[in-house]
């Protein structure tokens, strides 16, 4: 068992700060995903947890003990790489056996452990093949086998699925999730794929520019994004953002933007930091907004994107012939018949609305409340 604590860790390369004062507590047996765009520092964090990289300052603790200056071999970890990194000159059996041989495990025990790891990952029939004779998914399983056989307290994954094709990625996602359940070890998993994060994680740490943006359950991340970075990164397609102003001139409070006016939900007014005229950003997910094709509307259909189960409609506000139209993506029923240029009315249910400060921080919905 092992908890992993990242305590005020900074990692800089010269003038470039890759990780900036990051603090993150990972519970024993928890599955934590570090999520963020490329270059956000997530792999650097993983490398520091692995011992492949040393923090510039701060501590990394396993079960409360500082390990930041211990080499990888003295930490109880296994790691799966994006490049898979199976030893090309060894067959699958010897790849899986390698960490045990390095740890001088007795020969008879090595054999039984390799075979049970192979059984767990259903690669018993591939043990005498070499990596170049395996398919992508089989290689990934072999790499998982090499990690599992160690029986480590902490598993580290560095974008292990990004080299696989889409269908295989979905299968392996499930497999890694089940593996976590079966092994009962702590998993730290790095990805830039928010679907992977939402489907597998107990908790997600969203990172951007080396800074922790939010740390919470997938539900919290999705329902209560801390800021526009998180809101924009998690969810597919991305949340729609509309910059505008608060308007309270004639009694009723409204959000006003070019071509769009939205009455504000009840109880919101007293929680807004600024008064009338203050700038806010309205956010709504494509699945939160609705579309009324029949009614004469506030926008125009710019394009439609059918994906089988759903129909995504890009609605344009403002001038219909604008060079860079302001687009608003809305998820609707696939049977809706719409043509380009058709006026439509967008419905924005108050319970699905988000408001952010122009700087990014979420101001609505409030934490805790509905």
């Amino acid at each position, binding site marked *: 068992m092992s908890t992993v604590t990242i305590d005020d860790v900074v990692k800089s390369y010269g003038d470039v700060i890759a990780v900036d004062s990051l603090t993150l507590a990972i519970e024993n047996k928890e599955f934590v995903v570090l999520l963020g765009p490329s270059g956000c520092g997530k792999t650097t964090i993983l490398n520091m947890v*692995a*011992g*492949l990289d040393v923090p510039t300052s701060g501590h990394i603790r396993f079960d409360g003990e500082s390990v930041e200056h211990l*080499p*990888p*071999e003295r930490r109880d*970890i*296994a*790691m799966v*790489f*994006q*490049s898979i*990194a199976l*030893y*090309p*000159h*060894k067959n699958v059996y010897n790849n899986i056996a*390698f*960490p045990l041989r*390095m*740890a001088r495990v007795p020969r008879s025990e090595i054999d039984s452990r390799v075979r049970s790891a192979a059984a767990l990952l259903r690669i018993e029939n591939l043990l005498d093949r070499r990596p170049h004779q395996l398919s992508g998914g089989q290689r990934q399983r072999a790499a998982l086998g*090499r990690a599992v056989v*160690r029986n480590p307290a902490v598993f580290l994954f560095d974008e292990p699925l990004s080299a696989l094709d889409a269908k295989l990625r979905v299968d392996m996602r499930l497999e890694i999730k089940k593996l976590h359940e079966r092994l009962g070890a702590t998993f730290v998993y790095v990805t830039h794929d928010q679907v992977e994060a939402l489907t597998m994680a107990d908790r997600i740490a969203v990172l951007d520019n080396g800074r922790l943006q939010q740390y919470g359950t997938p539900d919290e991340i999705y329902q209560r994004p801390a800021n526009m970075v998180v809101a924009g990164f998690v969810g597919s397609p991305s949340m729609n953002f509309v910059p505008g102003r608060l308007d309270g001139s004639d009694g009723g409070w409204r959000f006003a933007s070019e071509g769009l006016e939205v009455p504000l939900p009840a109880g919101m007014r007293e929680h807004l930091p600024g008064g009338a005229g203050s700038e806010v950003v309205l956010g709504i997910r494509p699945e939160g907004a609705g579309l009324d094709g029949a009614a004469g509307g506030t926008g125009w259909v710019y394009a439609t994107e059918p994906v089988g189960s759903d129909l995504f409609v890009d609605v344009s506000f403002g001038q219909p012939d604008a060079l860079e139209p302001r687009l608003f993506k809305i998820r609707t029923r696939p049977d809706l018949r719409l043509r380009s240029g058709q006026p439509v009315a967008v419905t924005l249910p108050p319970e699905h609305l988000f408001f952010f400060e122009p700087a990014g921080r979420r101001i609505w919905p409030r934490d805790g409340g509905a």
Partner: protein
Amino acid sequence: MAAAGVRATRRRSGLSDAQFALTIVGAVILFNVVVIILPLIYSIWISLHETNVILRREEFVGGEHFAKLLADPAVLNAIGLSLKFTAVSVVLSLVIGLAIALVLNESFPGRAVLRALVLLPWAVSEVVTATMWIFIVNPTFGGLNGILAPLGIVSPSFDWLSERAAIYWVAVAFVWHIAPLGAFFFLAALQTVPADLYRAARIDRAGAIQRFFHITLPHIKYVVLIVLVVVTVEAFRGFDLVFAFTRGGPGTSTQIFPLLIYRYTFEFSQYGLAAAASYLLIGIALILTTAYFIVLTYRRKEVRTIRAVAVTMAPATAAAEAPA
């Protein structure tokens, strides 16, 4: 300009692609036939004849020269010296070349400059290398004695090139010249080893030495093989450096096989014997390199093609330079 000119020529001459290809390949083949193949065949003919230079007469003697060579203690001694010289050169240049490459593969300030500098000894001609080493080991004015004698480590005018030691000094000079080439090959190979493999191995608790034997060495195995073959062939047929360094002396203690062939040709005018000896040299080099391939690629399919290429190349290069 050149490409446009070629195209214009082809348009004028109206050659098809295949005709054009045959023309340029044919020219190269013709050149090689004249420069390599014909002398090679002629040297076989010479090796089977007794040539009398004064009477300008040639008499067919069949395999007599080969029999004579194999029975001659001077020849066996020269072959033995050549094998010793080659063995020392191969082992030292592999170890030193690999060590240099491993160091240069690490990142440190000034690495680029050092990488360029390390290749310099190979660029220096063998005759210049020999001259430099003469200055180093000479008993009276040599640099080695100049440093070691004042420190009391050796007596003044200590003779490094004794009959017993000379062959090793010649090999050391040759290693100084050839090891950088090996390092160059090794460095190129080392740079193709994926960094993630080393990271994975560190996670798997492999130490530096284990990482070398489990990842680095298997990865550069075929480059090691190529360097092995190149250095062996170079050492076994090497002439310039030893000739310039010791002329085969003191006595015959560094008279390696190519030097003996040289003497047969230019001192004794025994052309038939010299040609036969050249083929003996090629034969031994061929056996050595084939043995490497068999040992190192045993039960491996991927390298069949490399083996075939190297085996056909080795005698050609050896023959081209062996005096005939």
